[in-house]
């Protein structure tokens, strides 16, 4: 059986780096998505806390009326 000249070093490099790159890229993406979600949730909860405080401040004025 004739064997063909396959550059196995290059083959392992391509496959290893390709697979590793997928993991790295998707891991970075996962972290980025998680961070964006965290920041947006904090912004939303900060906004709703401010609204709650405003409502509490208005109540004594309403009671006086």
């Amino acid at each position, binding site marked *: *059986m*004739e*064997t*063909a000249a*396959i*550059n*196995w070093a*290059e*083959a*392992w490099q*391509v*496959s*290893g*780096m*390709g*697979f590793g*790159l*997928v*993991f*790295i*890229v*998707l*891991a*970075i*993406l*996962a*972290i*980025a*998505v*998680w961070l*964006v*979600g965290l920041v*947006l*949730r904090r912004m*939303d909860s900060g906004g709703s806390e401010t609204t709650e405080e405003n409502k509490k401040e208005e109540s004594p004025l309403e009671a006086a009326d």
Partner: protein
Amino acid sequence: MGDFWLTGFSELSWGNAVMLVIGLVFIWLAIKKKWEPYELLPIGVGMLLANLPGTGILLQPQQVGGEIGSAGLLGTFIEYGLLRYTILPQLIFLGLGAMTDFGPLIANPKLFLLGAAAQIGIVVAFLGALALGHFGIADFGMNEAAAIGIIGGADGPTTIYLTSKLTPDLMGITAVAAYSYMAMVAIIQPPIIRMLTSKKERQIYMQSQLREVSRRERILFPIVCILLVILLVPKSAPLVGMFMFGNLLRESGVVERLSKSAANSLINIVTIILMLCIGASMPGELVMRTETLLVLGLGLVAFACGTAGGVLLGKVMKWISKEPFNPIIGAAGVSAVPMAARVAQHIGQKENPRNFLLMHAMGPNVAGVIGSAVIAGALLGYLS
């Protein structure tokens, strides 16, 4: 008797006849068994048209020197839509993005890793194809091995895109293999999942309620993906860029007509043309080559290894996760959307009727689409 030589009968070879039968089988599978009908029906018809001799429908403009009126319809689509500019798979990805809900993935971003793990099948098939080339069993070099390996990504448009760039000769068979195995996900995956997991693991209950994902997160997700992924893997831009553009059309909520067109008329039209072209890329000579069977075999190995890779990482995540984590959903990392997620749901519910894993499994399922596009971009970057 002289008229006989004007008909297609005189030029019909045994290879053509076999491919005609295969085309008819595909049409039967699509209509009777409802196996991926949107793909297999036009592929089957494309096979018939490609193997009925003397039609001229496959003549490409470059083959007839650009002579007006000489090129065939399918030949023109193949040359300009696939070989020269790979327009069709990119437009398919645009439509797919407009149809995809990334909510389950955004709600639980660690599921991205399951989508990555499932791409191991691509690597296994890539090395397997090279081994066959090394021992002289088949004439597979690096480009052919990459085109065969990408079948393991279980993503038809990605397979077509990469193969048309690296080895156009294999485009038909690799695409047919990818779509056929996607149709057989419910047959291929369950034995592998059962082999790699215990009954107790399969019964793990995951809360069906996912975190609510805000509109702003859904809008930012495709933008973040475009910026990050393309900066890291520039050659993935055609697929990832179109995929995320389609998704942004959907999630922005301000271009409903465009979103509806992308998710309906555009993808339907492109599917018709692309699948016809894929079927038409399967001439009778393919049957005569041992490489065809080897490609099909390696494609199956790639699929199986991708499933195994996702499940095995699912088991690791189960061990390290504080919350209950069912490793079955790792199998959905192969990007056969939504069939692989449905398989996970079906097996999970069979083992534990309380379990509703579909939304959890959709996370790795759609992550796998991004993963296969990334690895295709990486392979293209190294090899082209």
